[in-house]
Structure formats: C-alpha cells, structure tokens
C-alpha cells in the first residue's frame, strides 16, 4: 500500500534563508507532484516530476525526484513572505491502481 510521508510538517523560517522539505514514499513510483495551498483556497499545481533525476525550478522553488531512494525534495532559496503556504507532495500509484496519495503537508511560515 502506498504511503507518503512529508517532513517537516511545520516550518517557521526567516526571510532570506534556505530550507528543504522532504517527501518519502513507500512503493515504486516515478511520478510525483508538488502542490501549494493558501488558507481557505484550493490546491495549485507547482511541479510535475515524471522520471528519476527530474529537476524542476520555478523562481525560488526547486523540486527534484530520486526514485531509487523514493524521495523528493522541495528546496526554497532565499525565502520571501509570499511563499508562506502549505505545500503538499503527492505520489502516483501508476498502473497498479491509479491512486494518487498525498502527504500530510508542510505548513510553511516565513517571518518578515
């Protein structure tokens, strides 16, 4: 059964600092997604990672996927207050059952 774990679950950091959110999953998959959610809103797609070694970057966010380690990371560079949100990773169960399972989310609070 596919399990997805994110850590940390809560992160408070200063503007200008760097940090990384980790997403581990339990079964083989080479498709992983990152989403952002603002309070009271729906989820917004950030990155789609479709193969081992995939790396995507958008502004101060960079996501990578290591399928052998079953690990994805979301790296934040020189954080700014606007990046405060909850970030979710989600793993695709692929052809086995087409489920997409989410982690519990990382609530990121960036202090000005």
């Amino acid at each position: 059964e596919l399990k997805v774990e994110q850590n940390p679950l809560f992160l408070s950091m200063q503007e200008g600092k760097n940090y990384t959110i980790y997403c581990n999953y339990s079964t083989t998959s080479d498709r992983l997604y990152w989403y952002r959610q603002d309070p009271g809103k729906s989820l917004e797609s950030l990155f789609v990672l479709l193969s081992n070694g995939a790396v995507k970057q958008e502004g101060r966010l960079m996501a990578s996927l290591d399928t052998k380690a079953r690990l994805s990371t979301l790296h934040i560079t020189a954080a700014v207050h606007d990046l405060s949100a909850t970030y979710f990773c989600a793993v695709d169960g692929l052809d086995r059952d087409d489920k997409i399972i989410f982690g519990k989310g990382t609530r990121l609070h960036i202090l000005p």
Partner: protein
Amino acid sequence: NAGVTQTPKFRVLKTGQSMTLLCAQDMNHEYMYWYRQDPGMGLRLIHYSVGEGTTAKGEVPDGYNVSRLKKQNFLLGLESAAPSQTSVYFCASRPRGRRFGELFFGEGSRLTVL
C-alpha cells in the same frame, strides 16, 4: 472554461441526513477523484474513477458512495451523515496518459455535520 466545478460550496447537515456532492469537469478527463481534507491530515482519497461507469475505493471509503454515470460528472454521496464527516471535500480530475499527471482541483465543498 470552467474546469472543475463543485456544488454545493457549503452545506450544514444534521446527523443522519443524506446529501450528494456534485463534481463536474469540462476538460474531457477520464480520471476523477474525491478527497477530504482535515486539519493535520492532508488530503485523503475517498473514492476515484478511471472512466465512465467505473469507481474504486481509496484510503477512507467508509460512509461514502460514489457514481460516475456520465464522464463529466462524479457524485459523492453520504447516506447517513456523521459528525466525523465534517470536512472540506475536494474533487479533482486528470487526463489518462503517461505524459500527463497533475490533478486539476475544484474549489472545495465545506460540509459541517451537527
């Protein structure tokens, strides 16, 4: 282009009442999903569908039923609502195919069961 539309947006029920949430998508997507979101729990998959007329159980299916009679619609039903079903419900869809992947989400439906 509306994308994924959920109705209703808000609903208050009494314990034991029944209701149906409707999810409609206009993107011709094959796959559709229902999730619930509770504080500290992330999104948990309730049921999903990989095509018209097919449904499957997710992580937390108990107390819910679903139907996909038309490709564009995915209904989530609560036959006898319980306070534990108080949550925000999200519907999502995506196309079939390996090069696609991301889910397209509706705005959510906030349900309170008293």
